[in-house]
């Protein structure tokens, strides 16, 4: 296992190359571009043995890897923002057909106004389509999560999205431990789906379902999505036993023990940890690593003894409140003693979340009543 200082996108590409991927299809979009550029270079240099397809748009990328994976070839694509929005229709089909795709989403704001910087609006807006969603805090976690994602997706027969903050993780250089091929092979079994498109043994994929059949199959999909939480937790433990790294319980990660809990997802959690460590030990962090399926019990347990809760969103459910906030408050409703909960929507379209921002949030949280929702425009 070698540790090196490497750009996030390049590190993710190396992780993909370690996973015995047979088909890669992609269309470049900022800030995802460096990931697929690195993979294209590896392919051109003969470093990875796979098909590489430059598609004309993201709709084709996702459709192509859906077909490839249905035919039994482990596949990969990555996108951002408008590209993910363009894939929308096929994302539902992939989950409904139980095709274990793996996709990296380099999170970026959605138009309009047009903006290339980071927030979570793109992937959060895809929360209801049956995909598993993992949000990463560091480049190391992004690398490890890609490898874990294939195992999770293929065991659950559910597509899995690894969400990494655009620029903050895609373009940053960090010391990263790239796992060895031998260890990845030990961790990740060969992809050999029981049901696949094969002319020798034909099956029907994607048949029409009349109402009752549809409802039953969708119910099964929902139950599979709920069950996949256990697999995410187990895969996190198995990964730890081979590679020596784990991310909380795979679903949520807690940091500090202060009585006011901050809930957030993604790279902003690094800033929050730093803030707790150096400025305010009365806080604690509950980092949401798994956003879909939503780890309700784990969040409830993490908030059991907290006096108040601040939910930091990087996206807005326009016309209501921060998306994570509404879901966390839903979980709090089931608790005997409901803590005060406020919502601060930070870092839209790449606004930096600084220690000063966090100071403002903490102070404001103390002054307002439960249910306060606020979009902070920046320092």
């Amino acid at each position: 296992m070698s540790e090196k200082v490497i750009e996030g996108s390049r590190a993710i590409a190396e992780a993909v190359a370690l996973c015995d991927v047979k088909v890669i299809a992609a269309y470049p979009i900022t800030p995802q571009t460096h990931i697929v550029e690195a993979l294209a270079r590896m392919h051109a240099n003969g470093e990875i043995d796979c098909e590489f397809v430059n598609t004309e748009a993201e709709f084709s990328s996702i459709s192509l890897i859906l077909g490839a994976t249905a035919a039994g070839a482990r596949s990969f694509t990555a996108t951002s923002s408008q590209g993910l929005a363009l894939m929308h229709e096929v994302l539902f089909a992939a989950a409904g057909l139980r095709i274990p795709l793996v996709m990296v989403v380099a999170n970026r704001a959605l138009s309009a106004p047009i903006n290339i910087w980071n927030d979570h609006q793109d992937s959060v807006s895809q929360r209801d389509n049956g995909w598993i969603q993992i949000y990463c805090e560091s480049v190391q976690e992004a690398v490890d999560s890609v490898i874990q994602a294939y195992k999770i997706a293929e065991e659950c027969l559910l597509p899995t999205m690894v969400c990494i903050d655009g620029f903050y993780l895609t373009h940053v250089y960090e010391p990263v431990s790239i796992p060895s091929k031998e260890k990845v092979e030990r961790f990740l079994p060969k992809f050999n789906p029981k049901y696949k498109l094969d002319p020798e043994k034909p099956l029907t994929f994607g048949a029409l379902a009349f109402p009752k059949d549809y409802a039953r199959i969708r119910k099964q999909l929902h139950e599979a999505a709920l069950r996949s939480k256990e697999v995410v937790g187990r895969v996190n433990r198995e990964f730890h036993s081979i590679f020596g790294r784990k991310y909380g319980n795979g679903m949520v990660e807690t940091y500090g023990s202060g009585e006011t809990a901050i809930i957030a997802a993604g790279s902003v959690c690094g800033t929050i940890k730093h803030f707790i460590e150096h400025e305010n030990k009365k806080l604690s962090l509950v980092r949401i690593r798994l956003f879909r399926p939503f780890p309700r019990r784990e969040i409830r347990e993490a908030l059991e003894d907290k006096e108040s809760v601040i939910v930091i969103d990087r996206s807005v459910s326009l016309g209501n409140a921060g998306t994570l906030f509404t879901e966390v408050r839903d979980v709090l409703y089931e608790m005997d003693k409901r803590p005060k909960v406020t919502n601060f929507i930070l870092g839209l379209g790449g606004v930096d979340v600084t220690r000063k921002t966090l100071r403002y949030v903490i102070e404001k949280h103390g002054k307002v009543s439960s249910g306060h929702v606020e979009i902070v425009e920046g320092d």
Partner: protein
Amino acid sequence: MKDLPGGVIESVGSTARNKTGGWRNFKPRVDFSKCVGCGVCEKFCPEGCIEIKEVEHLGKKCVIDYDYCKGCLICMEECPVKAITKEVEEK
């Protein structure tokens, strides 16, 4: 029948059991005395339910499979010798 993940069906040809001819409002009728068996209709039929095949004593003719013909009448539009006409489907 046991459900497989994603609604996969272990047999093929399930679509054939769904006889979509019942959706038809207009029925194309082929006049064999005019049909020259050129196959234009066969190529244009979006359902793939026209076949040019040997009809006893008449040679190669347009034969429509009414189990699946939805009555779109593209064959009638395209027929170069006007051998196909429509009639209202009686149900």
